[in-house]
């Protein structure tokens, strides 16, 4: 008797707000232990897709199947309850699951310390904490649930470089320990290259996945130089440029995009995968690699 594999599977997902078609024919699969990044410009339906995946919106067309045992969500803003202490905020999901007060405080305390919060911060109200501390609390609130799937909605976009780097590390440690699946939204290509195993590039109007990249080097082994190089490479691909509304890359530069790295360079770990699911013929939809 084998349980179905733990995965998040999205098939043929379309969504409209009123007459505005926001998403069209989205399909992907996120297995356990994989970090996938959804990148795309603002307004391409990334957040809607994430909310559909989390079950915060009702699916109109298509199918979302989530066989992970527990799912946690981390929002763009910390979204802490202002009238509860940091500790109670962290324990919120555990309380919702019906855990006893002592037990949930013990766990919340434990994870908070691991995420770099101090004892005395835990009794404070959110407004008494700095932005970085609030983000830690929000991350702790998600991770304390020991989720198998973590959905991240650009949670680090407002933080400074040092803090981002620290939270990336905390997140990756946690992810590796638990074989957690992570689906994150970002418009920051470098963040995507830094953290993810797979990058799904979205294009707007309507929101759709135009291509998928896979990164073969484990996230823990990527250094800054690696991240810079592959971010630059990603930014040269025609699909990414078109998605973000950038002018086509300079002649020559475009040729040695993802498909054909220049021989002089080290071998790229970035591999383009043309989406398995066919992108439905949306208006003027262009294909990867152009």
């Amino acid at each position, binding site marked *: 008797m084998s349980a179905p594999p733990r995965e998040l599977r999205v098939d043929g997902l379309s969504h409209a707000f009123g007459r505005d078609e926001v998403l069209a024919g989205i399909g992907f699969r996120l297995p356990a232990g994989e970090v996938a990044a959804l990148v795309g410009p603002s307004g391409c339906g990334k957040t809607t897709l994430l909310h559909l995946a989390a079950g915060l919106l009702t699916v109109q067309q298509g199918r979302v199947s989530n066989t992970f045992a527990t799912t946690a969500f981390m929002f763009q803003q910390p*979204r802490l309850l*202002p009238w509860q202490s940091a500790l109670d905020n962290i324990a919120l999901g555990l309380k919702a699951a019906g855990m006893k007060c002592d037990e949930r405080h013990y766990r919340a305390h434990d994870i908070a310390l691991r995420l770099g919060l101090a004892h005395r911060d835990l009794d404070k109200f959110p407004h008494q904490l700095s932005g970085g501390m609030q983000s830690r609390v929000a991350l702790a609130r998600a991770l304390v649930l020991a989720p198998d799937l973590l959905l991240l909605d650009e949670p680090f976009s407002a933080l400074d470089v040092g803090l981002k780097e620290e939270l990336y590390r905390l997140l990756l440690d946690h992810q590796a320990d638990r074989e957690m699946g992570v689906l994150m939204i970002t418009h920051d290509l470098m963040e995507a290259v830094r953290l993810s195993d797979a990058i799904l590039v979205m294009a707007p109007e309507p929101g759709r996945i135009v291509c998928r990249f896979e990164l073969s080097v484990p996230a823990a082994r990527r250094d800054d130089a690696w991240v810079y190089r592959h971010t630059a490479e990603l930014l040269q691909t025609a699909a990414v440029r078109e998605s973000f509304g950038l002018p086509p890359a300079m002649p020559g530069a475009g040729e040695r995009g993802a498909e054909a790295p220049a021989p002089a360079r080290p071998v790229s770990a970035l591999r383009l995968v043309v989406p398995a699911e066919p992108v439905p013929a949306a208006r003027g939809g262009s294909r990867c690699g152009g």
Partner: protein
Amino acid sequence: MRLLRAWAAGLPAYLWSGWGAIASLLLFFAAWEAVSLVYGPLVMPDPRSAFGTLLGLVESGAAWPELAATARRALTGYALSVAAGSLLGLLAGLSMTASMMSRPLVTVLMGTPPIAWLVLAMLWFGASDGTPVFTVFVAAFPVIFIGALQGTRTLDNQLRGMAEAFRLPPRMMFTDVYLPHVVSYLFPAWIAALGTSWKVVVMAELLATQDGVGAALAVSRSHLDTAATMAWIAAVVGLLLAVEYLVLEPIKREVERWREHGA
């Protein structure tokens, strides 16, 4: 329990911070003294004789029955308006249509002067307790209703989304998300309404009843006894100040500690 302990721990510092308020009250007494010095004791008795008269009233036991009657009426009307205003305001806030509909009605209620309600109440209830109680209710109700309405209307969608994402059961949704937010709007409204009740009840009594502080004021007016008038005023205002600053304000501070900015 934790709330009570925190309240007790913060009490000395809170009471000490009252010295600033006491200082400005004392400056007010100085101004009062100056006015009585200029216009003479018939127009304005000085603070000491007003307090002396009040002390006499308290010591002779004449003050308590009047104050009790006034407090009974004020609190009855206030309790009714708290119950009705909070409940109806919350319900109206839940529906966009209901809140749209209720706003003009509340404006009418607020815009009608309490004295007009008093005249109506006298026609309806005569010289019974019903007159001041009704007037207090009508004066305090819209304040609380608006507070409850705004509290419900301004619920943060982001927090609601967060709560859904963390699968909060409906009961927790109410106790952890909705209630603290709504209370933070309701509580100031309750305090404001208490002040209104206390003022309106004295006015209603002045015209409509045979006992209570308002009636005592009417008597002292007819005797041209300004010292007694000031004594009653001091009693009414003093009681309100005491209730507000010794009871309600500390509770409010504790309940809204999460709001304070720049700790």
